[in-house]
């Protein structure tokens, strides 16, 4: 690579990476409510769970649309290789997101048909989460590409490994959801959240360890990065595990806010670890972010608009979360 590291493409990579983790953290905890939905102790608990995310979930999902459009503009090869390769998975994810989105609105307004919307909400959330986890697995696995065009099959993305990452994501979003619920609820709902958090944490750690052990063996590039490259990146899994331990101890101490903060930390450090494993490849095994980038003038043209809008969106997002701070009481909806 002869390109300088800190160029427009790198700025764009940082923006997209930021958008992805924003999406994962924010939509993660509200998808998590759907994952936990079938196990909730009571219908009142379900009301609380839904109410705890109702004011913010659709704002969370707009990051996904911006990510999709932003990729086409800044890294078209990522967009035009990922989407064909993940064709069936993308459809399942969208169908899941649509069902849960609509369930959000109509469950509040329904009485006799409520149980149907419960299923739509849970099913849609689980399918969408699994599909997103499988995308992460497919990214680690790599894509069969010839002349910048995806040439693999319809189910290359669906392997035992991606099923594992898919299940890991369901557990991970479930964990984000349960720790968010600890923060936002009280009484039987919070008890339930404390209970499931431990189990979900165990599931997440099993998948985390399995992926960490497995990936360097199948991927020489990753193993070189970790075992003969820069040793400072070892800090990332260590920090992630520290966060995991903190989640456990905070649940033992029945703390309100710490489990959620520590879960976000777990996600962030794992995410950085993943990026560090593959950098600078955005479509492994062969396409770097500079290969995938659009033309300089195209990246610049859109950047001007985004620099104006992103701060406003962030301020608005922060304000919304501030307005809806505090515990959700049973029977007090935002709907």
């Amino acid at each position, binding site marked *: 690579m002869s390109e300088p590291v800190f160029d427009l493409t790198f700025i764009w990579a940082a923006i997209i990476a930021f958008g992805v983790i924003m999406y994962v953290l924010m939509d993660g905890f509200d998808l998590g409510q759907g994952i936990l939905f079938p196990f909730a102790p009571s219908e009142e608990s379900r009301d609380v769970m839904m109410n705890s995310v109702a004011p913010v979930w659709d704002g969370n999902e707009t990051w996904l649309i911006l990510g999709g459009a932003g990729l086409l503009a800044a890294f*078209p090869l990522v967009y035009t290789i990922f989407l064909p390769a993940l064709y*069936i998975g993308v459809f399942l994810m969208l169908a899941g997101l649509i*069902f849960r989105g*609509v369930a959000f609105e109509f469950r509040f307004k329904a009485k006799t048909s409520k149980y149907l919307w419960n299923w739509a909400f849970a099913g849609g959330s689980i399918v969408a989460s699994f599909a997103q986890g499988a995308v992460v697995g497919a990214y680690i696995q790599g894509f069969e590409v010839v002349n910048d065009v995806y040439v693999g*099959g*319809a189910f290359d993305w669906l392997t035992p490994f991606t099923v594992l990452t898919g299940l890991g994501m369901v557990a991970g979003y479930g964990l984000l959801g349960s720790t968010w619920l600890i923060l936002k609820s009280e009484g039987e709902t919070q008890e339930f959240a404390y209970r499931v958090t431990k189990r979900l944490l165990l599931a997440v750690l099993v998948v985390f360890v399995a992926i960490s052990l497995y990936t360097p063996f199948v991927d020489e590039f990753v193993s070189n990065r970790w075992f003969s490259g820069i040793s400072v990146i070892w800090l990332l899994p260590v920090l992630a595990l520290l966060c995991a331990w903190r989640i456990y101890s905070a649940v033992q101490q029945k703390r309100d806010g710490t489990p959620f903060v520590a879960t976000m930390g777990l996600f962030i450090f794992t995410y950085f670890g993943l990026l560090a494993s593959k950098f600078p490849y955005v479509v492994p095994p062969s396409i770097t972010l500079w290969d995938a980038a659009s033309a300089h*003038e195209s990246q610049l043209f859109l950047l001007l608009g985004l620099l104006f*809008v992103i701060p406003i969106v962030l301020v608005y997002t922060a304000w919304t979360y501030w307005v809806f701070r505090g515990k959700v009481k049973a029977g007090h909806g935002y709907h």
Partner: protein
Amino acid sequence: MELDPLLLSRIQFAFVVSFHAIFPVFTIGLASYIAVLQGLSFKTQNPVWEQLSKFWTQVFAVVFGMGVVSGIVMAFQFGTNWSEFSRLSANFLGPVLSYEVVTAFFLEAAFLGILLFGRGKVPQGIHFLSAVMVATGTFISSFWILSANSWMQTPAGVELRDGLYHVVSWSDAIFNASLWPRFFHMALASFLTGAFVVAGVSAWFILRKRDVEVHRKALSMTLWLLLVIAPAQVVVGDIHGLNTLEHQPIKVAAMEGNWERKTNVPLLLFAIPDQEAEKNHFEIGIPSLASIILAHDPNGEVPGITDVPKDERPPVAIVFWSFRVMVGLGMLMVLFAVIGLALRYKQKYVKSQWFLKGLTYMSFAPFIAVLAGWFVTETGRAPWLIYQQLSHADGVTPSLTGWMALFTLIGYILVYAIVFAAGAYYLMRVIQTGVTQGPEDESEHPEQRAKRPLSAAGASWELEEQQS
């Protein structure tokens, strides 16, 4: 049977985009109407305007919500099914489509929340300003989408380097030759849609003698509006057609069902175009009128479909008939606008049963006309995705197989059938709830309300609950 991924992808795109389009085309018009109502309310302090604005804002919220949901699917269609097209044109298409998202994003973040939930909580002037900003935002959003589409019809401002499009002039590419006629044609179509829905719903209430005075005011103002914009659309449509004649003559030939380039071309009222035989069956037409419309001269020459080889021709029957559906409905709209003026005398328009009933049915007309219009312009471009530069066949995703495309096509149809049946049903409930029974905000902490579009509507899901 061999499944063709290309054909199935085209059907899928037509399906999802048609389904998506009906929501924004309505909300764009309705947003402007709400802004006008807010302005009137602000200026006159007459509570009727406030009631109307409150009612239509709830309808707006539901339709906007459905537009957002169906829009998520659109953001991924270009990559899943048309990856080669996306890869080749990403340098232009990517930023332009992203700007559409950014505009919508900004709109939602800043002003939509205030419009939907700020009534009575922010000063009236700010609320009015938010309505204006939302209305403006919907136009800016549609500007970017139409710019992308127009560029595919009349590409400009780009050059091919290493097989990829590179933008050499943003202004030439964005403001390409067919942008403004298309934009104004669409803007008027949105106004027509908004106006006919408001007129139809108002008529429905008047027929049932519910809040007659409120809805009479709404009907009266939309009838005045229709009197201006329905004929204006005929003029703008004609300009758009002439623009197409200049840049995409074969599309116009297909619209007219004209196979041979010739003069004194009749305007066909009926015909069954035969793609194989290169002629029409059962023609009924008005002599020389097509020449007069297109060239403003009975001896004017009109391009013929046979000007281009067989494999470069659009499916003539679809273009021909979609065009007639659109124009026919447009004429019907003009007719209703004129009748509305005639019935002004002694306020007959609120008493005439057949006129009010007709208006109720006319609520659907603009939606059908808009879809028919898009069928004309999109199938009329075939076989090209980027006119005369990239064909559908070269733009489709290479790794896509027939059964993959069939699976998602059936999937989208099922998902949309369930979700939008529920949405349409709920919309009907919102409308039936009416103006006076609109929900009051009983929340103890009114500022703590969901900022989602749909939650602005307060109607209940089940009919029984409403009546008990």
